[in-house]
């Protein structure tokens, strides 16, 4: 009786597992199938293309279609925006975290709380006045609009993760010893704080990189020139074009998805501990 029940429950569990795998993989598998299909076979809706071909991928890489005629430049734009945003978030948030966690002014708690309160503002509503504000700052059309916005919206989470780590994992005796030796706050920041903060900085850097890489709405609103666009804007514009080459579009979507997926799996341990730190008390 008992073994029959456990065999039954194992079967049920395996069924759940298979279902989950199919559910999870289907849209990704579909991307792959469409991008491997030749143009004339796109309308067959097959589960696997009859003559799989890499034509769509080579079209993207050689910019052989008007929809992807700036692919390499836009890939570079995405990379540039993401890297500069990550560096910016790291700079601003380590400075603020140093003040909050090591110098411990009276207003430390107030600053962290009000910074985190940013995340209850619905960004897609704020995007409209933010667009007007960017116009006032004369930044519309510039990648700096996207970079500055990403830095500002990424910093509160970064500040929170970094200051938690700084409080918990760096002994305050280090600062005290340095102060006795005559080191000022800035010297402690550069020579003691930053070197010891490397582990959470990796998490925060990846977080900010992905935040910028994945951003669609603000990129779409701020960047309208083909030469300054990031890749998601180009992908979104596919839907507006009259003749969509779906295989080319899915190939572009796969290229665009590759860096974050690789980063995610390469740093899985760090990132998932970082993202759970965002939701769970530690």
């Amino acid at each position, binding site marked *: 009786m008992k073994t029959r029940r456990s065999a039954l429950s194992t079967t049920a*569990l*395996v069924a*759940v597992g298979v279902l*989950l*795998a199919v*559910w*999870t993989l*289907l*849209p*990704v598998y*579909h*991307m792959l199938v469409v991008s491997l299909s030749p143009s004339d076979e796109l*309308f067959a*809706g*097959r*589960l696997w293309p009859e003559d799989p071909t890499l034509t769509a991928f080579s079209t993207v890489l050689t910019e052989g279609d008007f929809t992807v005629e700036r692919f390499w430049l836009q890939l570079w734009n995405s990379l540039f925006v993401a890297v500069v945003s990550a560096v910016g978030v790291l700079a*601003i948030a380590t*400075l*603020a975290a140093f*003040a909050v966690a090591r*110098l*411990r002014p009276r207003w430390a708690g107030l600053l962290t709380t009000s*910074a985190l309160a940013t*995340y*209850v*503002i*619905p960004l*897609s*509503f*704020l995007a*409209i*006045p*933010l*667009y*007007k*504000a960017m116009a006032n*700052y004369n930044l519309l059309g510039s990648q700096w609009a996207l970079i*500055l916005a990403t*830095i*500002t*919206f990424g*910093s509160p989470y970064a*500040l929170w993760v970094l200051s938690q780590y700084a409080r918990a994992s760096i002994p305050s005796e280090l600062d005290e010893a340095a102060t006795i030796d005559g080191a000022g*706050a800035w010297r402690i920041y550069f020579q003691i704080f930053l070197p010891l903060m490397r582990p959470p900085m990796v998490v925060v850097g990846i977080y900010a990189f992905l935040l910028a890489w*994945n951003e669609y*709405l603000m990129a779409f*609103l701020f960047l309208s020139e083909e030469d300054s666009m990031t890749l998601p804007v180009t*992908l979104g514009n596919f839907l507006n074009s009259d003749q969509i080459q779906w295989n080319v579009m*899915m190939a572009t979507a*796969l290229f*665009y*998805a590759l860096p*974050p997926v690789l980063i*995610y799996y390469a740093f899985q341990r760090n990132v*998932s501990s970082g993202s*759970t730190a965002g*939701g*769970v*008390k*530690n």
Partner: protein
Amino acid sequence: MLLAPPHKRPTGARRTLRSYIRINDPWVFVLPYLAGAAFLIVYPVGYGFWIGRDPLNYLQLFGDPTYWAAAVNTLLFLGVGVNATLLLALVLSGFFALRRWWVKALLPVFILPWAVPVVSAYLSIHWMLNSEIGMINTILRGIGVSSPPEWLNSYGWAIVAALVSYIWHWLPFWTLILLAARMAIPNDVYEAADVDGATGIRRLVHITFPLLRGTYLTSTLLAAIWTLSDYNTVHFITGGAPGDTTHVLATLGVDYAFDIGFIELGVSVGLTALPLIIILIVLLVRRLKADDGGLA
């Protein structure tokens, strides 16, 4: 300071800038953050209220059936989308807590929807839903459904498609959060329950769920707030089709502001969600206070 005797001043009668700005003060370190927040959060928020100040725009919205459709859809996303996601995540966190090698191996696969950029994934789903040649209807016809639904041509199927896509994207994230909360329950709690004879369902109901309650409720509130500002799901899955019936407030606001070019009306759409946002924030703050500070 005003009463300080003059001879204590460093440079005679006139105070230099240097005596005000002390480079090692804590506020100097948070200055870059504060500047960013002032220019890109505080100012745009205030500016938004200013742009949306005209009551006539609200009258126009409240007489606009598209607006009401978007409001109802937004509530559907919050009521059905968020709760279905969180409930499924709660169940799946139990599944992924199982100590079997193949369950552990499945976890990285399951996380894929969170790792793939949302634009790529949603474009793929959008094409899968094509009623003539999309993969879903090909499969349905293959298993004998003679006339599968035209997904994006009817309001009902289109909003279901958007909700399911939303769940697909968000499920891994909330499952990971709840899994982490589950793993944080100390083993001796379960051992003590074992001694008292609580196993299986009773252990789940009397121990696991009460201990997950805080994280679950906080997650639900956060998910609701974030879903309110979810532009991508509806924009890429249905684009508001058919006939602007599947918009949510987030997509309608952007649509009015930039497609029609009526910025004030677009901002007003967002501001009508303010009462809901305030309720969610009050609930969230209460929860966080009840949990004594931590975000769980």
